């Protein structure tokens, strides 16, 4: 029987053909072997005097990017199975793989399944004749965004002189409506996380710590860190809570709603073991639920105890995955005292998630943020808190549409990693990232220069902010706050008007009169 198990497992190589192949132009190849040393997946070797593909290419593009003569192209190998519209190659590959290993299929990054993308079916408005557009290079357009508790209303005292007497809860002022999401040390390397924090500081925004505690070296960035309290409570100490800008309770993640986190023992190196405070080589498990939260009332207690522990100085937020009843759950969370709420759509990224959940669970952020904003507005709660939305914000266009659908700001992860070098090959869970991002192997992590990566992330978001100003100017709006929930500046141009109706967005062609 054991021989049969081994045979089943070992047959996977013959039964599953590769999906990608590096193609080498031997005329321009100088045989410098740079590609061989750059390939962390061992898909290229130097055999009999020439560079030879050896299988297992994941199309990370590292070899091609570093070939001094540009002699490498990555080829997508056409489907190798007989064509079938229902039993697609992807379906059959999954079956064959599982029949070999008996395991739960694992993948990383956001889902690559071709679900419709609602962002791409939304068009923006612009000012014409009846309201003037603004030139952002000559006039001030405000993009400062506040993260935290809002007063709800402004009360002005007229007694002596005009003075605002409203109570305003703890807020963090950021220079643009973007926060970098939670990418933990463990899922990514020290250099990668450092670069994100450096960029956040430079941009004056916040970056998530992820669930993994905070490395002592990163305490210098603490005033720009949104620290995560997740179900494993890794590294959460009073010392750490009292240094950061904001605290966020992670209930769910868009890529794996309802699922916990499993950092495999291989990734729990000396460095990771110190920040997570667990022994080297053991699996780092974040339980599926928080075991102190089985209800909204329980969540209220965790929010309250975090407020007590931080002496009411920092905003306490909650992050949930966008699932079917997201609006009702959000209402409960705000009532439980959350100062800000982050909704993570089903396309959100991950360093490792079961494919079954990543590809099939949750709802898109476009719809989720619109229904949450609507529900909270109807219940008189929306103006007391900050709503953040994430789950595959790929560009400034997505950011702008998301804000107009109801978010105060967006959470971005994958785009920041792409800025550093990530090519979204979806192999983070293997810990072999050739770009030195999603790996703990020192020979790979040293490939990522934090300073350069930080500049690239800073450039990306600075550019997005400029694009935001361009759009706001074109709409004749001088402050991003006036775009929040401003669905009238959007029109739906897709196949399913029901979605537009749920989002509260008019169809193209529908106007005021």
């Amino acid at each position, binding site marked *: 029987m054991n021989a049969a198990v081994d045979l089943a497992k070992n047959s996977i190589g013959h039964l599953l053909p590769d999906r990608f192949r590096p193609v080498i132009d031997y005329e321009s190849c100088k045989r410098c072997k740079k590609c061989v040393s750059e390939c962390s997946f061992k898909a290229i070797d130097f055999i009999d005097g020439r560079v030879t593909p050896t299988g297992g290419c994941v199309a990370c593009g590292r070899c091609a990017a570093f070939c001094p003569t540009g002699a490498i192209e990555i080829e997508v190998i056409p489907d190798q199975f007989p064509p079938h519209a229902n039993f697609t190659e992807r379906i059959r590959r999954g079956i064959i793989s599982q029949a070999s290993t008996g395991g739960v*299929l694992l993948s990383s990054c956001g889902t690559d399944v071709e679900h419709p993308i609602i962002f791409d079916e939304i068009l923006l408005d612009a000012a014409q004749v009846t309201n003037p557009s603004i030139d952002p290079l000559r006039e001030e357009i405000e993009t400062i965004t506040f993260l935290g508790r809002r007063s709800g209303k402004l009360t002005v005292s007229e007694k002596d002189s005009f003075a605002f007497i409203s109570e305003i809860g703890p807020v963090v002022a950021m220079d643009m409506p973007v926060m970098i999401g939670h990418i933990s040390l463990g899922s990514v390397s020290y250099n990668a996380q450092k670069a994100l924090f450096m960029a956040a500081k430079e941009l004056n925004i916040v970056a998530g710590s992820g669930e993994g505690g905070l490395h002592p070296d990163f305490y210098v960035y603490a005033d720009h860190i949104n620290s995560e309290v997740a179900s494993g409570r890794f590294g959460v100490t009073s010392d750490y809570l009292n240094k950061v800008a904001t605290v966020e309770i992670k209930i769910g993640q868009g890529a794996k709603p309802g699922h916990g986190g499993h950092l495999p*023992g291989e990734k729990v190196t000396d460095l990771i073991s110190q920040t997570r405070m667990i022994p080297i080589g053991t699996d780092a*498990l974040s339980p599926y639920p928080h075991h102190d939260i089985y209800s909204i009332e329980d969540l209220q*207690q965790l929010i309250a105890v975090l407020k007590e*522990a931080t002496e009411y100085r920092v905003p306490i937020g909650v992050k949930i995955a966008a699932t079917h009843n997201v609006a009702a759950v959000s209402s409960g969370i705000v009532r439980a005292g959350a100062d800000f709420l982050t909704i993570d759509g089903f396309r959100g990224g991950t360093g490792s998630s079961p494919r079954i959940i990543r590809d099939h669970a949750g709802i898109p952020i476009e719809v989720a943020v619109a229904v949450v904003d609507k529900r909270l507005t109807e219940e008189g709660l929306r103006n007391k808190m900050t709503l953040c939305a994430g789950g595959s914000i790929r560009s400034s266009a997505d950011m702008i549409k998301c804000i107009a659908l109801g978010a105060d700001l967006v959470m971005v992860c994958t785009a920041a990693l792409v800025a550093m070098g990530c090519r979204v090959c979806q192999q983070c869970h293997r810990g072999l990232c050739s770009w030195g991002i999603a790996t703990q192997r020192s020979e790979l992590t040293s490939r990522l220069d934090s300073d350069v990566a930080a500049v690239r992330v800073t450039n990306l978001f600075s550019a997005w902010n400029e694009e935001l100003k361009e759009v706001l100017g074109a709409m004749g709006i001088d402050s991003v706050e006036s775009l929040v929930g401003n669905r009238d500046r959007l029109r739906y141009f897709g196949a399913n008007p029901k979605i537009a109706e749920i989002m509260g967005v008019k169809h193209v062609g529908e106007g005021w009169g």
Partner: protein
Amino acid sequence: MVEGHSSHEFNGVEVSGVVEGDTVFIRADGRDGLGHPLDYHALNAIIRKTIMTKCKRIVLEGVLGQRYIGSASSRSDLKIDIHGTPGNNLGAFLDGSTIEVFGNAQDLTGNTMNSGKIIVHGNAWDVTGLAARGGEILIKGDTGYRVGIHMKEFGGAKPAIVIGGTAKDYLGEYMAGGTIAVLGIGPDNGKFPIGHNIGAGMHGGSILIRGQVSHHQLGRGAVFGDIIEDDVQRLDELIRDFEEAFKVEAPRDWSAFSKVCPNTYRPFSGHYDPTLI
């Protein structure tokens, strides 16, 4: 200013309570300036201010279920005595101080504590010691469900929970380190010290139980282990702390103890298929 309290200046800080030497006595059943009973918000603000005085001991009297007392208290030279009944999340994120409760504690005592000590002269109920990373929780009586969930350890920080009486289901669930000892002292004297699903999903640490435990009471991933010299030594230390805290004598019949430990430190190895499809 709290009704019935005189305000004193102590080491430059205005405190609401009675100062005697290094000790500040605070009444938790008083009323605030508006005549409302002191809620957790007001009481904890008073406690935090009092902690700033560098006093060595705070005695809270008449505690009426106020939650989050002593959360994130990090002065290791401070002791907080609680008379009455503290509410949920007592000593959450505790990092060095000692809390002694002369009565029962509610749920979530010592939530995510890092170091320090919590002594409960009665029962401490559900989810005590959740995700504790260090420190010690001593309970004279019984505990409820899901106690010691996801406790972990690192280097010299090894958390421990000692339960004098009995514990209910899911004790040490998801446990990743540290020690839980159940002494089974009480009317049944170890006949039913524990519920079901003990150590479900545990992947570190150990649970030591005095009295009858059957295989069917273990959760997935938990197995019986042999009690070795190190366990006896640890138990002896913990029982000594227990005896010292409660001024009682506890049984040291090592043969009556069972040890529950994880069957693997890598519960998810082999569970996943990372193949590129």
